[in-house]
C-alpha cells in the first residue's frame, strides 16, 4: 500500500515539477498536435509505471528524462517513414539553412524554426539538444544519454554552432 502511495506521490511531484519540461520535450519529437498529446500521455503513463521500481540509484531528474526520452525514441522509431529522413548533428551542420538571414522578430516563428531543426535530428542527438536547451550541464546530459563527457561536449559545440548560425547571425542581420 505504501509502495502504491509513494508511486502516486512521486508521480504527482514529478508531474508538477517537470510537467512543462515534458511538454517541451514532446514538442521536440512530434510536430502533429494530436500525436503529440498522445505522446505526452504515454510519457506520463510510463513515468507513473516506472516509479513502482524507483530506488533513487540516480536522481529523479535523470530518471524522468531517461523515461521520457525512451518513450519518445520508441515513438520516433515507430514512425518509420519519418525516421528515414533524420540526420545526425554532424550532417545537420553541413546542411544549408533555407531561412538563413531571414531572422524573425516573432518568438513564435523562431520557436517553430527551432522545433523544425530539432525534429530533423536522430533520437540520440535530440536528447542532447533538448537537454542543452533545458540548461543542463554536460555531466547531466551524459548521465541521461550515456555518452561520454567528451562526446557530449563535442555534440554541444556542434549544436551551438548550428544554433548560432541559424539564430544569432540572423538576428544580427535583422537588428
Amino acid at each position: 500500500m505504501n509502495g502504491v502511495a509513494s508511486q502516486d506521490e512521486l508521480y504527482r511531484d514529478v508531474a508538477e515539477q517537470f510537467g512543462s519540461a515534458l511538454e517541451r520535450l514532446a514538442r521536440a519529437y512530434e510536430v502533429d498536435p494530436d500525436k503529440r498529446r498522445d505522446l505526452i500521455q504515454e510519457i506520463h503513463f510510463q513515468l507513473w509505471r516506472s516509479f513502482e521500481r524507483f530506488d533513487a540509484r540516480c536522481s529523479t531528474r535523470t530518471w524522468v528524462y531517461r523515461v521520457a526520452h525512451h518513450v519518445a525514441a520508441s515513438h520516433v522509431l515507430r514512425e518509420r517513414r519519418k525516421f528515414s529522413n533524420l540526420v545526425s548533428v554532424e550532417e545537420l551542420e553541413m546542411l544549408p539553412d533555407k531561412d538563413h538571414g531571414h531572422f524573425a522578430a516573432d518568438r513564435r516563428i523562431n520557436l517553430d524554426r527551432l522545433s523544425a531543426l530539432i525534429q530533423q535530428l536522430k533520437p540520440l542527438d535530440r536528447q542532447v539538444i533538448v537537454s542543452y536547451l533545458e540548461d543542463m550541464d554536460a555531466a547531466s546530459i551524459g548521465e541521461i544519454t550515456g555518452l561520454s563527457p567528451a562526446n557530449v561536449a563535442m555534440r554541444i559545440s556542434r549544436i551551438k554552432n548550428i544554433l548560432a548560425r541559424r539564430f544569432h547571425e540572423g538576428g544580427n542581420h535583422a537588428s
Partner: protein
Amino acid sequence: MHPENDPKKIWQSQPVEPSVMTIHLLRRRVRQLHARTRKQLVGSLVMPIVIIASYIYAIRQFHYPVVQSLFALTIAWSMAGVYFLNRGMWSAEMPGDAALSTGLEFYRREVDRRCSLFRRLLWWGFLPMISIIGTFILALATTEGSKSLPKAMPFITLLIVWVGAYLVIRMREQRELRREIDELNEVEKSVGG
C-alpha cells in the same frame, strides 16, 4: 544579443498546455492496456485455428501427394511462425521499465529489436504466406492445367508486384536500421574508449 533569438530563451518560454493526466486516468489506462493484451492473446489463439482450418480445406481440395505435402509443410511453418512472432511481441520492454538504462543503451536495444522483429516477420510470417500462395498456384496448375491458371494471372501478377514492393520497402528500412546500429556501435566505442 536580441532576446527573441536566444534559442534557450525561445525554447524555455514556449507556451505549454497544462497536463491533464491524473492518477484516475493513469489507472484507467492500465485497465485499457490489460484489456488490449487480453484481446491480443485471444487474437493470437484465433489465428492458428483459422490457418489450420484453411490449410485442411486446401489439402482436401487438392489430392496430389506433392501438393498435400507442401500444404502440410506450410502448416507446420505457419504454426511455428505464430509461436515465434508472438514470443517476440510479448518480450518487448516498455520504456518505463528501462529507467536505469541510458538513452544510448535503450535506443540501441530498440533499434536492434526492430531489426530482429523484421527478420522474424520475414521468416515466420511473410515467407510462409508466400509459400502457401505458391503452393496454391502450383495446385491450380497441376490439377486444372491451363484452364484456371490464365484466369488467375491478373491476381497473381498483382500479388507478385505487391510482394516485390513490400520487400523493397522493408529491405530499405532494414538497411537504414543497420546503418543506425553501425553508427551507434561507433558511439559506444567512443564511450568505452
